[in-house]
């Protein structure tokens, strides 16, 4: 297996929003889901997850409630707010446009100029 990629600056927020958009999750669950979707190809600093979550909540993009985890422990579950949904959509569009542009530049061959 190839060495996992480090996360690009600023993409963690988007990944968290995406992970939660599939259903409410606690912090550890978010980590697992991102790893699962990415098939372990991304390296996420576990501790960095929480400052990001607090920031997103402070901005009003996600909301939290305390609930029971699978192993019957108290855990904080995050879910997407309406504003968060819009934000995710916006960020996804921007990301796609960005990768198109960057991809286009990188795939340019000499004779195309």
């Amino acid at each position, binding site marked *: 297996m190839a060495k996992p990629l480090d996360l690009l600056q600023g993409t963690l927020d988007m990944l968290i929003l995406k992970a939660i958009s599939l259903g409410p999750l606690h912090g550890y669950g978010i980590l697992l889901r991102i790893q699962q979707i990415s098939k372990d190809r991304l390296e996420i*600093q*576990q501790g960095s*997850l929480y400052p990001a979550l607090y920031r997103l909540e*402070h901005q009003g993009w996600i909301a939290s409630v*305390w609930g029971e985890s699978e192993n019957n422990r*108290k855990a*904080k579950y995050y879910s997407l707010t309406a504003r968060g949904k819009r934000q995710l959509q916006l960020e996804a569009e921007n990301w796609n446009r960005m990768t198109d542009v960057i991809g286009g530049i990188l795939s340019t061959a000499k004779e195309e100029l």
Partner: protein
Amino acid sequence: MNFFKNLFQRRQMESEMDTELRFHIDSFTADLIRQGIPSDEALRRARMEFGAIEAKKEECRESLGLRLWDELRGDCRYGVRMMKQNPGFTAVAVVSLGLGIGANTAIFTFAQEILLKTMAVPHSERLRMLNWAVVDPKAHFPGPAWGSFGPGLASPFPYRLYQEMRRHNEVLDDLVAFKDVYHLSATVNGQAEPVDGMLVSGNFYRSIAPKMIAGRPIAPEDDSLSASPVVVISDAYWARRFGRSAEALGKIISLNRVPVTIIGVNAPEFKGAKAGGTYEIFFPLSLQPQVLPIRDGSLLAIDNYWWLMVMGRLKAGVTDQAAGIALEAGFRNAFHATMPEKKDFPHFSIIKGSRGLDRRQLEFTKPIYLLLALAGLVLLIACANLANLLLARSTTRQREMSLRLAMGATRSRVMRQVLTEAMLLASLGGAAGLLLGYWGRNFIPSLFDDSWHPSGIDPQMDWRVFAFAFAITLITGLLFGVAPAWRSTRADVNSGLQETGRMSTGRPRAFLGKALVVCQVSLSLLLLVGAGLFLRTLLNLRTTAIGFNPEHILLFDINPPRSQYPWPKGVALYQRIEEKLAILPGVQSVTLSAEPLLANSMDRNCFRPTGKPPGPAEQDPPWTNSVGPNFFETFGIPIVNGRSFTARDNHSVPDVAIVNRRFARESFPNENPVGRTITSCERGDNPTPIEIVGVSADAKYSDIRGEAPPTIYFSFPQDNKGRATFELKTAASTPSIVAEIREVVRSIDKDLPVQEVRTQTQQIEATLSQERVFATLTSGFGILALILASIGIYGIMSYTVSRRTNEIGIRMALGARSTVVLSMVLRETLLLALIGIAAGLASAAAVTRLAATMLYNLKPTDPLTFVAAAFLLTIIALASGFIPARRASSVDPMHALRHE
């Protein structure tokens, strides 16, 4: 969760964060164990992969915006610790800031009472008052008037004209009329007392809508000649006379001997149609003929008698301009309808009425701005002082700052910390200042008090005062905190950390600190010059020649109601009082006059030598006064020609007059006026000539500043105006003679109050209140500035000396004598002081011009004041530099060289 919830339920938020992070690590550990890793190893790996937990928590707090708050708290706690460590410094800072902010707050409290407070009625900002003026100098005055005129003041109107205007008004909610009246005699349960009151039109209470706290307001039905007489009283009167008892309502009291029924009580905040007024009895216009019979009785029936103030609230959506145009048209029609014979139409306008009749702002605005400026200067000096002390301290704290920077604190973070400490000091000073301002809020008004009765200014602290105090606290904190904060981040990390670092920083001369001290000295000089100028003005005024002897003269007023004492019965009353007073033991002489001397009151009437054509007297009429026999003897005004008045100059013989030298010189140049006659320019077609029987020396009349005006004295029994002031020359002590005076007056008429008992010197002092206030406050500010400047000089010199201990030690080791070192330090002090004084003298010469009109017999650049201030400041500077100089000269060379 929002920010404030996090802030105020901090413990809950912290424990939830704890739980959440622990859950993560536990879950991860459990998963690792499930993969077959031993539990110890699993926990270790989980923790490692998570990263530093405390650091992550801090990041979480920062995400919530709590970090700034935490740092602020930390800085504050540290700042408090620093303050505790330097109690001396803290005390100087808090006291000097407290005095500066307190002075500003007290003056601002006074200012907002005088300049900003409006009448306590709904929508006072929409109130307007009507005003007219005779602009054309050739035009005739449109009739007799009762009231005051002047730019920016509302003017009085005749009753019928007011009613006409009211009937055709479409731009104001309604037009109400009122008249302020003074020295009414109100008798409750047989006790007479002088009160001020207000005549109001029947619609006044309905339209202006002041709040009442008991009973009912005056209604339109009450304002009718057939209605039973009613009054509304003020809360103050209710409290004073009736102890706020409900029995006051319905009670019958007598007002100038007219029985009236109390029907209601105003709320305490409503003081009549004048912000800061002291009116106590409000009664309908229809009572004027009974209570205040003036001239032919009813002013309501005289169409050309101008006496009522008219006010109204702008209708919503009506502009001042539109209202002015509509009302002027209304005025023009009403004027022609009610006074068809008058041709000269006066100029009409409307003015702001939110303060009613209050005109204090006209006389106080300039003094208040000046006082605020002076108090601001004091605060500035205090700021300079603190900036200096903090700067000196920041140098000793260089190691600490270097350490902080070395450990990764950013420059802005260090700056913020120093600023927070400054702000902490500022807010302590601000709190002290607010407290001082609160205690001192009555101090400034009390300076304006006459010594025998209060000014009635009762400033209240409100949100504006708090906002002001808060704002200046913030500004001072920034002012004195910025320089030290900036300086602290300039620290060179390396040299700052070395023990001997400060020897090599090539800037031991403390340039910034010295510049601040120079500023301080120059500002202090400015204040000292101001104090000197105002003190000398007061002194000049007190010692100026007034033309009469004010010593040992007691004054009191008598205002017999005209309904009871029509002329000439009033004359007899005065004669009886005079005769009885004259035989009191200790009384040397008794006289009376229509106007008291040097009390800012006067009477001017146009008189000219009989037979002369109209001349300057029409534009600038002479000043007139009616005085009793003995007047000139009592006041020691010499009669230079002819004779004085005697008791025989009464109404059964032809009128006589005495003129002063200036009138004689101006109206009878090179002639002997005795035996000549003067005639009134106004009285009818065939005025009686009045014979001049004597010429007196010049004496000042109404105000102490001007020259003695051309004056005509008439004999009181021949020219009785109603109200009079008695003047007694007595060697007896005031309290004992006052009791006897009251007894005498009571024995003649028990309902006649003796008013305004004061000595002539008190009376003169009262007209000097503004000068006294300035002299007192500027002297106080000057002393404060001197103290602050001496602290500043002491601080900076001690600092330079301590920094140069090493150098001084070397000098002494090489043989310098201690006197040389002493004079070296003193020379440096003197240099600082002289630069500051030079700058201060230059700026004083530039700005004292602004106060030139407030000075008396003094140029704004009075050399004596300037030299004295400079000299005083030099002495103080040398004295405060002496202690550090002594310390320097007694340095032990061995000790100094080992130092550091």
